[in-house]
């Protein structure tokens, strides 16, 4: 070190390394926070989709003989995993605007569709996903008209 020199080469070197570490940590921290947020959002979508699917295929709804005008709680099961065709048709006829509220997922938009085992669409209701940031689909296998069919519940926003 020369006489009167305040900033040494060692100090500059240390500051450069220190700043590099700081920016690296700051960047990592930002990524961790963003991932945490994404994870929470994705998790809530997954929980919503699976809860709605489970509620649909395991409950008869309320009142038990509900239709599109009397419905309070939507459920389309005759028994667990066995779909009541009449209630399924009523579900398909419910207006999109009230679907989210009735199924307890007003935060999300919902699409429900049933397909055959091979994937041919039997019927669908709700809003197809478009411009979404979060999307989750729950697949349940059900017995519909004595055939194994697939019920997809998709939530998105």
């Amino acid at each position, binding site marked *: 070190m020369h006489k009167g020199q305040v900033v040494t080469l060692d100090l500059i070197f240390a500051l450069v390394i220190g700043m590099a570490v700081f920016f690296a940590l700051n960047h990592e921290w930002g990524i961790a926070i963003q*991932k945490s947020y994404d994870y929470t959002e994705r998790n809530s979508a997954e929980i919503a989709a699976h809860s709605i699917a489970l509620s649909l295929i395991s409950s008869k709804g309320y009142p038990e003989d509900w239709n599109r005008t009397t419905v309070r709680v939507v459920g389309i099961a005759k028994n667990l995993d066995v779909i009541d065709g009449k209630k399924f048709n009523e579900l398909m006829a419910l207006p999109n605007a009230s679907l989210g509220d009735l199924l307890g997922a007003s935060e999300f938009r919902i699409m429900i569709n049933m397909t055959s085992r091979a994937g041919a669409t039997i019927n669908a209701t709700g809003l197809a996903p478009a411009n979404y940031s979060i999307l989750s689909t729950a697949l349940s296998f059900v017995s519909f008209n004595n055939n194994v069919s697939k019920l997809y519940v998709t939530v998105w926003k």
Partner: protein
Amino acid sequence: MRRGFIFTLDAVFAASILLIALAAISLEFYTPSQTFWLPTMGNSLMTALDKSGVFDNIFQQSDAQAQTTLTSYLASLPPNVNANITVKIYHGSGSTFTLSRTITAIKGVPDPNHETTVKRIFNKVDGSYFGLSEMVLSYG
């Protein structure tokens, strides 16, 4: 420590450990949570197979026919799911049941480190036979 050395090897070492820890935490968020729902999907398929009469038909089918049937139903699982199903048919005589048939169908090879197993028991209407089905699933 040499004179004028502000950033020591210890500090670099500590910062490296911190970075690795942060990276590990952020990588943790990439762990697919879907694994949590795999048993739900497997159980719903087993229940639907039972309640649609597929398992009941197996009692009347040959082993080869039953295997074809089960393979076709496994094919309806999502493409990223590997699974196998083993159905054991027991025959009842008096108070004892003996294993009479074992039928296995396969769709890919489930990852043994991340697999989940679901089981279901079903029986023939006359009570002379019952079946134990076991499905192993994993994302693959």
